[in-house]
């Protein structure tokens, strides 16, 4: 399946876009997505942390993804 991933902050610079169309096996989970992205974009491995948000919530590593999900890559946050 193909998912759309929103990119912010340093991940936008690492990947070079604010939206990424990304190919994943059917029923891939969050862990698989992170591993795959870190393999494709090794600079992601150097970040202090890297989370996945699904539909405006932090996702658990085992959470299964679907093509309709609103997925975002969340590098270390730093508001305030």
């Amino acid at each position, binding site marked *: 399946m193909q998912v759309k991933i929103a990119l912010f902050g340093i991940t936008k610079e690492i990947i070079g876009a604010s939206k990424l169309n990304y190919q994943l096996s059917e029923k891939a989970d969050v862990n698989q997505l992170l591993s795959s992205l870190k393999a494709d974009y090794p600079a992601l491995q150097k*970040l*202090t942390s890297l989370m996945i948000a699904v539909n405006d919530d932090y996702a658990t590593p085992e959470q299964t993804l679907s093509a309709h999900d609103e997925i975002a890559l969340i*590098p270390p*946050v*730093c508001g*305030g």
Partner: protein
Amino acid sequence: MIAITEEPINTQAVIDAVQADGAGAINVFIGTVRNQTQAKPVIQLDFEAYDSMAVKKMQEIADQATARWPIQKVAIVHRKGALQIGEAAVVIAVSTPHRKASFEACEFIIDTLKQVVPIWKKEKFEDGDVWVAAHP
């Protein structure tokens, strides 16, 4: 009032939003852009936000605080875009019947906001840019 804005934050409007006849105390926290980070001069700060999720998380934090302290009203406004030295990046206001809870709740909100709300900060120095906290 829970919002992300690109305009300068109107602090008085945020405070007015938590006015309540049953409130004896209002605590306000304003996070401002400092002129330095670890003694290195900062020229400008750029804030980026994942707006929809940021607003959702700020509302959740407000709800958590309201469950824990006797809050009358709470307001959280975070700015995004380019900010100059001295400008407010975030303004949080909390009204409670008595003062202690207003301090505790407001500090809880800013501490939690910094941990979970998807907002990113890029510091611009004379010799380059740094995404704050991105690297160990």
